[in-house]
């Protein structure tokens, strides 16, 4: 196929050709970035939690009025919940993954440091890691005699024995604090320089809130502190995935039976909490998908419209060419090549634009760089759409009979 005649024809339709190129370029740039945003969101929604997601349920209670004997009542609650058939483990905790409200503390690596090293989440609760199903990768869990009541520690932080000044941290936090070294036996200094010795490392335990950035998602630690109803009523139960709804109902009934006056403020599976946590990402993904489809559709239809116009305008020329011996395939190929040329210029421009938009997004939305794979993928997609859109008008052109050449319009 000779490209020169196509170029000389296009030169006569500069503005229209330019508009097609511009439309393809804009579409290419937006679609590349939109697809990239979607993959980012999907990746975010797939974030590892480090806990047995499908086996956990949360039941939160709040009590009204003064609460004497909160420890005894907590033990009664826990015993009653443990008795529910199907419940493998239960504990009272200060917070749970994906619930958005969190306890955090600054961490320092030396007692004389004036600027904190980082800020991490503090989990509390007896046998919390076992109940959540977090996997220990080094060291050990806390032993029963190491646990203290949180309210005692809160009342007098100086009374904590050395044996209880210990912590279990996540692998992510360990690698951030001591890259390439074992964290076991090392000491971190919490908030107001409380020294804590690392005795265990778990594979993962996500923070309840990601407001400090997704890259800090795994910066969590667990302290050997036992919770009681005096400091909140956040129960977490572990059971088989199929039993979760039944366990929630049974747990509420058991808790209400022990104290009819209390209020259930939260009841859900951890999977539901996670779904709710990522709802805006899911909505955004759907929206981006909708925009991509609409954009490709508008661009495709625009090409159909302009190509149809060109075909109609060149009917006589086509007729003449046919009369001079050009086959139908020649005519078809002419329009296809023309579209390919325009699409290619559009795609090249679009790639530059896509890169520019990506740079802007990197600045304002902390996005990573657009992977190079997006460029060939985007190019192929737009070439295909261009060819698909031009096919109809090109076929119509190919069917222009040579006799048209002899008629005056």
């Amino acid at each position, binding site marked *: 196929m000779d490209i020169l005649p196509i170029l000389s024809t296009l030169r006569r339709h500069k*503005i*229209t050709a330019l*508009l*097609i190129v*511009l*439309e393809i370029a*804009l*579409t290419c740039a*937006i679609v590349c970035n*939109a697809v990239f*945003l979607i993959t980012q969101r999907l990746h975010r929604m797939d974030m590892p939690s480090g806990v047995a997601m499908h086996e956990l349920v949360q039941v939160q209670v*709040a009590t*009204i*009025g*003064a609460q004497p004997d909160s420890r005894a009542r907590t033990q009664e609650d826990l015993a009653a919940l443990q008795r529910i058939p199907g419940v493998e483990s239960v504990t009272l905790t200060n917070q749970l993954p994906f619930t958005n409200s969190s306890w955090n503390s*600054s961490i320092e690596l030396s007692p004389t440091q*004036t*600027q*904190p090293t980082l800020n991490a989440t503090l989990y509390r609760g007896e046998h919390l890691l076992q109940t959540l199903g977090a996997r220990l990768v080094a060291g050990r869990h806390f032993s029963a005699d190491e646990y203290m009541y949180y309210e005692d520690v809160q*009342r*007098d*932080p100086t009374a904590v024995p050395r044996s209880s000044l210990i912590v279990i941290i996540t692998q992510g936090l360990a690698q951030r604090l001591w890259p390439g070294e074992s964290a076991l036996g090392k000491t971190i200094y919490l*908030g*107001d320089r409380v020294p804590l010795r690392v005795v265990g490392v778990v594979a993962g335990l996500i923070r309840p809130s990601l407001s400090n950035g997704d890259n800090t998602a795994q910066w969590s630690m667990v302290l050997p502190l036992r919770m009681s109803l005096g400091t909140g009523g956040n129960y977490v139960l572990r059971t088989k995935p199929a039993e979760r709804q039944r366990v929630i109902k049974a747990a509420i009934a058991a808790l209400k039976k022990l104290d009819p*006056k*209390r*209020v259930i*403020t939260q009841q859900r599976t951890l999977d539901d909490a996670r779904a*709710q946590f990522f*709802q*805006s990402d899911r*909505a*955004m993904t759907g*929206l*981006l998908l909708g*925009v991509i489809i*609409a*954009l490709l559709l*508008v*661009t495709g*239809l*625009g090409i*159909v*419209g*302009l190509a*149809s*116009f*060109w075909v*109609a*305008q060149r009917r006589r020329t086509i007729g003449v060419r046919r009369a001079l011996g050009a086959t139908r395939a020649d005519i078809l190929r002419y329009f296809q090549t023309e579209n390919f040329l325009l699409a290619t210029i559009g795609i090249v421009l679009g790639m530059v634009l896509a890169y520019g938009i990506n740079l802007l997004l990197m600045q*304002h*939305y902390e996005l990573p760089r657009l992977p190079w794979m997006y460029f060939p993928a985007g190019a192929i997609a737009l070439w295909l759409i261009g060819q698909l859109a031009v096919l109809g008008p090109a076929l119509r052109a190919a069917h222009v009979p040579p006799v048209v050449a002899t008629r005056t*319009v």
Partner: protein
Amino acid sequence: MFGYYLDLALRSLKRNKVLTALMVVAVALGIGASMTALTVLHVLSGDPVPGRSGHLYYPQIDPRDMDGYQPGGEPPDQVSWIDGMNLLNAHRADQQALMTGGAVPIQPTRANLDPFFAQARYTTADFFPMFGVPFEYGSAWNADADERHAHIAVISRTLNDKLFGGRDSVGQTIRANDADLRIVGVVDDWRPDPHFYDLYQGTYAENEDVFVPLSTSTDLKLPHIGSTDCWGQTPPGSDGLKQAPCTWLQFWVELDSPAKAAAYKTFLTHYSQEQKTLGRFLRPPGVRLRNVMQWLDFNKVVPGDVRLQTWLAFGFLLVCLVNTVGLMLAKFLRRGGEIGVRRALGASRRAVFEQLLIEAGMVGLAGGIGGLLLALLGLWLVRRQPADYAKLAHLDPVMLLVTFALAIGATLLAGLLPAWRACRIAPALQLKGN
């Protein structure tokens, strides 16, 4: 002439229905998408207290120890009990209120209602007149009630409907955390969005259902909800958060003139210096005094996703418009013959140009109507989202006008180039060709 041009435009648009439909649909899609995004952005970045926001200021001071100190760093975004009380009692502003959020357990007397938690605000008397809170029944409490630690409450219309069936409940009591609170007022519909005075309750959170004097709330140990930021060591045996080195309260002031605002800022610096001399503060004075809109701006309350959506929608509109320019150009140039004849018969370039622009405007009008319907559909979809701002997404009259202005303006702009190209067609050449 205008009527004649309209008629011509209609005829021309009817002649090629597919092309016209393509243009109208493209404009409608672009307008629909951008108006949906723009309306959400408009609603979310609105002024929560119109007419007052310029006079309401949020003082910040820095009472922390030297740990983590960086010169010029931001002070904490809340105040401690001691500083809050000091600033409140200094009465240096026209009005001032110290407050924090919470949840009050309500024990209804009606047997068919279970106990429940109501969102609450513990505050001081000026809160109501300062923020212009409207009352359905009764009124706010006064400073005297704060002093007396009075067992009183102001409740929302929603809670009044739930507990008292919407009747005037002033003088009745509600049982909260085993204490009786006498209702002194019922707030009429009032929902400032964003929830500017305490963003920790959710940026677009629903309003509180119960308002209790701050002094009373600490007496009754009503649960506090919100952010508590602590440093250093809590003195042993301290009474809850009152003596603790923690910031957990919001302090708002009303200052009616810029001069007063400047004077108040100086006062805050002097206060910080004085506290440093007394040994309570360790850092050099770190003072901020932002008004409502500055405070919202500083906290970047409009979700990043909403901004991204707006950019995306306008990118889409741009593609739709480029598409329309192309199609319109094709359409106008195809009528070269007709335009040539008209020009040859004496129509001026200007007349042809006007007529073609009217045709473009009609596409814009049709696209605007289509876009409006799509925007209504889009906003309906947004409202079905679970985000807390979703319910606010409604088209107001301003945005309705903007929709049509944008649609017609954009299409006229898109029609400029094709119309200009078409009216420059040389009449002789076209006639000869035919």
